[in-house]
């Protein structure tokens, strides 16, 4: 049972990096790929229908951590205190940019929120890098440091690559000028997930040793199992609905 929930945790965390990674990457690349407001609108419209379905994987990670690995939850979040605060503020800033950018007409309004999307995305990538570096170091050292910064740059670069590939896949030849197939997108997703998959594999025994007791995990499994087909179905449906076969320009974009 504990191995099952370790698998769930790993799947959610890796899924978050593989999916939300391209949203964060495109956010970082927004001023580079979108020189004009029209181009930026097109990039945001491309990722917009996926954001809500992608970012929620991290919400689920925190929930599973609390329910299935409660000792780790407190220790990890508190041990990473400044990084987690930076991550949350960045996440909120990025999301606020997406939700608010189209709510007023002015060019300055939309441009300002586009910068919020960009800054928030950089903040997310760098915070993740620092968090992963600190976790790999066993949460012993200070969570903010040079190694963390280096790791953050690697994560940011991988997310940017993933975002670039996603845009080339969904809008071939339009935003990036390049076209990429589904295979390339899977490769870039794997690349984006690598920074979190590696520490997870190393830390698996430690996580297993701190899983919640069997009673708790049994209750979690019993209640969550009936919903898994719906969860998988909703995610697949999102990709089928907003994938490249239907022109993204025809999406009534709310973000």
């Amino acid at each position, binding site marked *: 049972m504990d191995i099952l929930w370790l698998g769930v945790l790993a799947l959610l965390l890796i899924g978050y990096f593989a999916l939300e990674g391209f949203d964060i990457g495109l956010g970082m690349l927004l001023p580079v790929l979108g020189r004009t*407001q029209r181009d930026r*609108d*097109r990039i945001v*419209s491309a990722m917009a*229908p996926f*954001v*809500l*379905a992608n*970012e*929620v*994987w991290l*919400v*689920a990670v*925190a*929930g*599973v951590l*609390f*329910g*299935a690995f*409660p000792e780790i*939850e*407190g220790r990890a*979040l*508190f041990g990473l*205190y*400044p990084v*987690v*605060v930076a991550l*949350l*503020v960045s996440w*909120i*800033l990025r*999301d*606020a940019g997406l*939700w*608010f950018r*189209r*709510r007023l*007409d002015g060019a300055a309004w939309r441009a300002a929120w586009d910068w919020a999307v960009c800054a928030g995305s950089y903040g997310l990538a760098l915070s993740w890098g620092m968090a992963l570096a600190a976790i790999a170091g066993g949460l012993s050292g200070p969570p903010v440091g040079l190694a963390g910064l280096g790791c953050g740059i690697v994560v940011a670069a991988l997310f940017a690559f993933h975002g670039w590939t996603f845009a080339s896949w969904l809008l071939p030849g339009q935003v990036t000028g390049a076209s990429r197939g589904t295979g390339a997108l899977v490769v870039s997703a794997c690349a984006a997930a690598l920074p979190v998959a590696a520490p997870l594999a190393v830390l698996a025994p430690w996580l297993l040793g701190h899983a*919640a*007791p069997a*009673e*708790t995990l049994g*209750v*979690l499994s019993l*209640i*969550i199992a009936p*919903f898994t087909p*719906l*969860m998988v179905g909703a*995610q697949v449906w*999102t990709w089928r*609905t907003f994938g490249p076969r239907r022109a*993204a*320009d*025809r*999406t*009534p*974009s*709310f973000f």
Partner: protein
Amino acid sequence: MDVLDLARTQFAVTGSLHFLFVALTLGLAPLVAIMHTRHAVTGRPDHERATRFWGQIYVTNYALGIFTGLVMEFQFGLSWSGLSEYAGDVFGAPLAIETLGAFFLESTFLGLWIFGWHRLPRWLHLACIWLVTLTAYASAFWIMVANAFLQNPAGAVERGGRLVLTDLGALLTNPTMTMALPHVIGASLWVAGFTVMGASAYQLFRRTSEREFFTSSLRAGVLAAFAGSLIAVGFGYAQFGVVSAFQPDKFKQPLAGPGLGIMIGIGQPLQFLIMFVLMPVLYWLPRWRWAQPVLMIVTPLPFLTAIAGWLVRENGRQPWLINGKLTVADAMSPGLTSGMVTLSFVGFAGVLGLLAVVDYLLIARTVRRGPAAATLGVDEPAGPTTRAHALSH
């Protein structure tokens, strides 16, 4: 203020902000779903306009519910790691189920609903908003299960210095949950009903061209508020028995007593006003110009009573985090410093406070511009031309 007070204040502020937005989300979701159902069944354009207009208000409000909710979820680990250390095996379960079995689905289906206009088949698109509503209420259930456990730790025993889950049935039928959940849901419907009523009164008062649209929505708002206020008040009084059984000293706490006074002092007369004044004259009410400013002025009151209600529930639990088991002081993360909390508090409260103000201004603007300017689900190519087209209709 010492570090404990700071951490408590941070939780109180972010929690209150969260509920302010979540209450409206919970109340508006079924209203928007009903409007969308009428649109799907009849195909009438006025029902589509209503769905898109109130739907835009709903999703604009939803954004802040997410932002504040993120901080809430992670704050447990940041400031109160003693809680997961001691009771995570029990308290963590409903939270994990909420994120996986409810919010995960809610967020995914909300994305499909927002961006699925004119793309999804009519009935599947309608199913999305009903699934969003259903999962939102499932969320409320699991959060209330978790909160009720803090008020009355049922279904768990202490073993080796930690709480372990022994009785799932007792956890899920906690009397401090079964009475409080309908109370919260009633309050949410009330909040949403008054928001719809107040926004409609404003539009009618300005004598815009949308008289028909807002005449019917004003009536719908009062009806929703009537249903919500009956449920909220009924289950409010019903909780006195439960509270005196499990937390006899609850109302003696410094904020809980006055909070109770505000909740009943405002809530009870307001409920009478709806039942004995607004409901009997419901048919004529939208035409009475003098009544419209009054309806606008009372709109924020159920929000105020909702926050007062949470102050009663949470402050009345002090000094316990888990009633009789774990104090708030013992649950605080060991090593947490005033500097850390101050810094994160400034960050969270500053960012969330600012965004909350912006969000309310955007909602007010959506209300002011009326259904013709709603951008949710506009059937136009994306781009800067969207708004111009929407206005020219």
